[in-house]
Each structure stands twice: as structure tokens, then as C-alpha cells.
């Protein structure tokens, strides 16, 4: 029972990071129909920038803000410069472009910051609370609470943006009805740029949280997360931000149980098995309610 509780909590923690990462993928997918394979290396880049800031003597929080801002800028620049020319073209072109970006950014990070692992000090202690004499919940620490809380706050802010603001409505209209939105005066190009910027910001947050969890970073430290984030996004249906969150949490729980009851080395495979099963049984995701999109 104690092990189950510990694994469940651990699943929620890692699941919330998967959720953030899946959310970043979903934001881009639903507005531009592109799976951004570069999301992981973009997040690695912004995390390295944050570490450089922190190493220069600034606090973690300054580093975090810099990482988020760097994400915003990186996302916007990449959309304008690299993605815009392939938008609306054959889907494979965009896929190849984001794969190329993934390699290029990872290479750039390695060139600038070196390939060695670097220590990353989380803002709060990673030592679990002792809930009862002799029983420490490893997955319930100040840092895991911060991780889950940061993701939750980000989700709530994003949902509020999309649901309750005119900007959010313009972004959703641009995502789902580009031509109609343009005819009604929405600057669709700007909305797509903003979508990429927000996605990269969420990705940057995920990078910082993962780094705090594993305590070290290297240029490819986000590689596994792109797989988990993608599986979580597909679980949730790729189009739905809320689906991404639920998908992330479910995947986090599933993988946590695999890690605890089976073996650590099976994580990657378990994620891919879940992906294949979902695609076979419910290709629209677990919560698909809307009918297939009309052209």
C-alpha cells in the first residue's frame, strides 16, 4: 500500500511534466497541424540559457524567467522564419523541417554549452517528506509540490486565456477556421506566431521542471520527454489541451507503476506500447467527441 501510494504520487509528478510537454505539442498541432519534434531540443536550449544565467550568480527565479522569455522568443522566431514557408504545404515537409530543427538546435546547444552533463540545482529540496515514523514519501517533496503547482498554474492561465479572452478566441478561430478567421479580420499569421511562442514557453517550463527533477542537464536531456509528451498528447487526442493534461497524468501513472512493479528499463517500451494500443483502439484519443474535422 505504501509503495502504491508512493508510485501514484510519483506518477502524478512526472505526469504533470508530461502534461506540460504534451500541451506544448497540442498548442502547435491544433493551430498549424505540425508535430513539433524540435520541442525537446528547444526546451533543452532554454534550460541551458537559464543555467548560464544562474551560474552567473543570479537566482533560480531569474533563470526561470529568462528561460520562459527565451522560449517565447525562440518559438516566435522559429515560426516566422522556418515554419511559415512550409505552412499549408505538404505535411511531410513540415515534419522534416521540425526534425531538422531538432538536430540543429541540439547541435547548437552542444557547440555553445558543451556536451558534458551539468549539475542543475532545483529551487526547492528534493528530499521527500517523512509522513510517518520510518516512512518517507520520496515523491512528495517541496520540489515535487512546486513542479505540480507550476504546471497547474500554467494550465489554468492558458485555459483562462483561451476561454475567456478575445485574444484566446482569435487564436482558437485561427486554429480551427483559418480562412473564415481571415475573412473576419483576424490576423491569423500573428495568432499562429503567438501559438508557437506560447507552446515554446510551456516547453521551456517543462524543461526547467524536468531538470530540477533529474538534477543534471545535457543537450539531449529532453529526448525521452519528447516521446512521453507525444504519447500523452495522442492519448488526449492531440487537439485538446485538456486531453493533453489528462493524457499526461495517465501516462505518468502508468509509467510510474511500470517503473515500480516491473523495471525501469521498460519505460520507453511501455510508452510506445501505450501509443500503439491507443492508435489501434481509439485513434482519435481517449476523449474524442468531436467528429472528424471537415476540410
Amino acid at each position, binding site marked *: 500500500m505504501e509503495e502504491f501510494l508512493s508510485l501514484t504520487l510519483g506518477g502524478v509528478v512526472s505526469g504533470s511534466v508530461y502534461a506540460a510537454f504534451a500541451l506544448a505539442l497540442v498548442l502547435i498541432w491544433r493551430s498549424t497541424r505540425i508535430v513539433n519534434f524540435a520541442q525537446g531540443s528547444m526546451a533543452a536550449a532554454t534550460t541551458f540559457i537559464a543555467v548560464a544565467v544562474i551560474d552567473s550568480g543570479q537566482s533560480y527565479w531569474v533563470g526561470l524567467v529568462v528561460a520562459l522569455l527565451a522560449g517565447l522568443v525562440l518559438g516566435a522566431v522559429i515560426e516566422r522564419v522556418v515554419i511559415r514557408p512550409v505552412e499549408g504545404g505538404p505535411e511531410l515537409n513540415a515534419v522534416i523541417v521540425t526534425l531538422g530543427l531538432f538536430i540543429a538546435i541540439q547541435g547548437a546547444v552542444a557547440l555553445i554549452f558543451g556536451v558534458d552533463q551539468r549539475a542543475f540545482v532545483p529551487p526547492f529540496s528534493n528530499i521527500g517528506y517523512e509522513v510517518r515514523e520510518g516512512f518517507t514519501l520520496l515523491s512528495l517533496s517541496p520540489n515535487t509540490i512546486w513542479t505540480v503547482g507550476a504546471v497547474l498554474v500554467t494550465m489554468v492561465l492558458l485555459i483562462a486565456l483561451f476561454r475567456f479572452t*478575445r485574444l484566446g*478566441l*482569435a487564436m*482558437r*478561430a485561427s486554429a*480551427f*477556421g483559418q*480562412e*473564415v*478567421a*481571415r*475573412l*473576419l*479580420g*483576424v*490576423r*491569423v499569421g500573428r495568432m499562429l506566431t503567438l501559438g508557437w511562442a506560447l507552446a515554446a514557453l510551456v516547453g521551456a517550463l517543462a524543461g526547467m521542471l524536468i531538470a530540477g527533477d533529474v538534477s543534471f542537464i545535457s543537450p539531449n536531456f529532453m529526448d525521452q520527454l519528447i516521446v512521453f509528451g507525444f504519447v500523452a498528447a495522442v492519448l488526449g487526442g492531440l*487537439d485538446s489541451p485538456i486531453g493533453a493534461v489528462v493524457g499526461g497524468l495517465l501516462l505518468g501513472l502508468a509509467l510510474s507503476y511500470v517503473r515500480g512493479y516491473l523495471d525501469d528499463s521498460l519505460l520507453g517500451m511501455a510508452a510506445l506500447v501505450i501509443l500503439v494500443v491507443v492508435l489501434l483502439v481509439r485513434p482519435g484519443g481517449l476523449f474524442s467527441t*468531436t*467528429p472528424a*474535422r*471537415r476540410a
Partner: protein
Amino acid sequence: MAEPHGSTAADLTKGAAGAGTGTATALLEVQGLSASYGPVRALDGVSLRAEAGRITAVLGANGAGKTTLLRTVSGLVRPTAGRVVLDGEDITRAPVEAMVHKGMAHVPEGRGVIAELTVDENLRVGSLFRGKVGRDEFDRVYDLFPRIAERRDNPAHTLSGGERQMLVVGRALLARPRILLLDEPSLGLAPRIVAQIFGLVRQLVDTEGLSVLLVEQNARSALSVADTGVVLNLGRVVVTDDARTLAADEDLRHAYLGF
């Protein structure tokens, strides 16, 4: 009896004068507009005038260039030649996003509802560019279309075809256009619904001074509400005349309008 004629500017003037509309001012003027999809020429020197406070119907068979005409007017398709003038301003090269600011609302073919948004959200998209818009304007649209008012919080993909058409017309009205471009609003709708929607458009034209450029394959219904008719065939204007005159012209109806 209207004489089928070519589509040069001189002919157009003649056509317009012949239609007895020479005194009205042209709100929208299309001059010698040509457009191509690759090697296929979809519009070939089309000229027409849509007058203020009137319904101008563009008629013709499938592939006559009707939809291309509207898409070129609103900037979705770039013309290879010709001009589009709205109230004296040349808008030929204006970006699509700017058209609604200039007073033109284009309701594209196939309803154009954003299926993932709710009915109310769809309406709000129509007024987004105007900034904050009073709730009373939405209530007015809901009063016009009680059927969509009942479903305002439902996702738009749950609406029937007729309700979708009402929604997109209502959404365009929230953009407060001077001229409304309607592309095949009757497509796939029951005759009763078509009559209802056309009747409402007529009412808006008569009471609010709205101007409409209507593209329709359903020529009979369109001519019953329109003031002026323009018949397109293979990308060229065949004839421009008073709607009633066109509807009465049996040869023309058989040749181009299919009724």
C-alpha cells in the same frame, strides 16, 4: 429581352443603364477582373457593379466562376488583371484581413462555421475586429434567428445545415458590413429554409440599407429576391439586367440558368 453581350467596360455601362439602375451609386465595382488557377482561367475580364442598398445576384452553372469571383473580390484569390473598387477605394491588393475593416463581409461557400467553437463564440469571432461590442448587438442577431438563439452554448458542429447558414449570416452581420458577399447560401438546404433566409436578407437590405452581392446556382430563388442579375458563363459575363427581366427571359433561363 436582354441581349447577351460581352464583358468589356463599355458593355457593362450599357448593361447597367439597360437595367435601369444608372442612377444608383455602385458601392462595389469590379472592373475587368481575371483570375487563374494554374493554367485554368477561372475569370476572364469580369465587370459588374453592386449598388448600395440592393441585392446583386451572380448566377451561372457549376464552374462558371461565381465562387472564384467572390474569392477574388475579397482577396483570397489574387487577380491576374482588373480592379476591385469599394466605395471609390481601390482594394484590389488589400489583404484579406483588411476587407472586413473596409466594410465587406464574405460568407464563404459551405457555411464556414467554425465547428469546434460554440454558436456564441462563432458570433463573437464576427465582431472581434471591432473591439468590445455590446451584448445588445448579439441579442439582435439572436432575435433575427431564434433557432440559433436556443443553441447558443452548443458546439457549432451540432447545428443543422440551415442553422449553420443562419449562424454565418448572423456572424457576418456582427461585422457590421456595408456589403455582404454571400456564396451559395441555398446549397443543400430545404426550399422552406432557403426562402426564410433569402426573405431575411431582403428585409435587412430594405430596412437597414445593407448591400448584398449574392452568388447562386439556384437562379430561380436568387432572382426572386435580387434587384439585379449578372449571368456568368465560363468566367465571362453573359448578361447583366434587372432581375425580373432575367427571370422572364425564357431563352436565357434555359441556356444558362437551368429553370
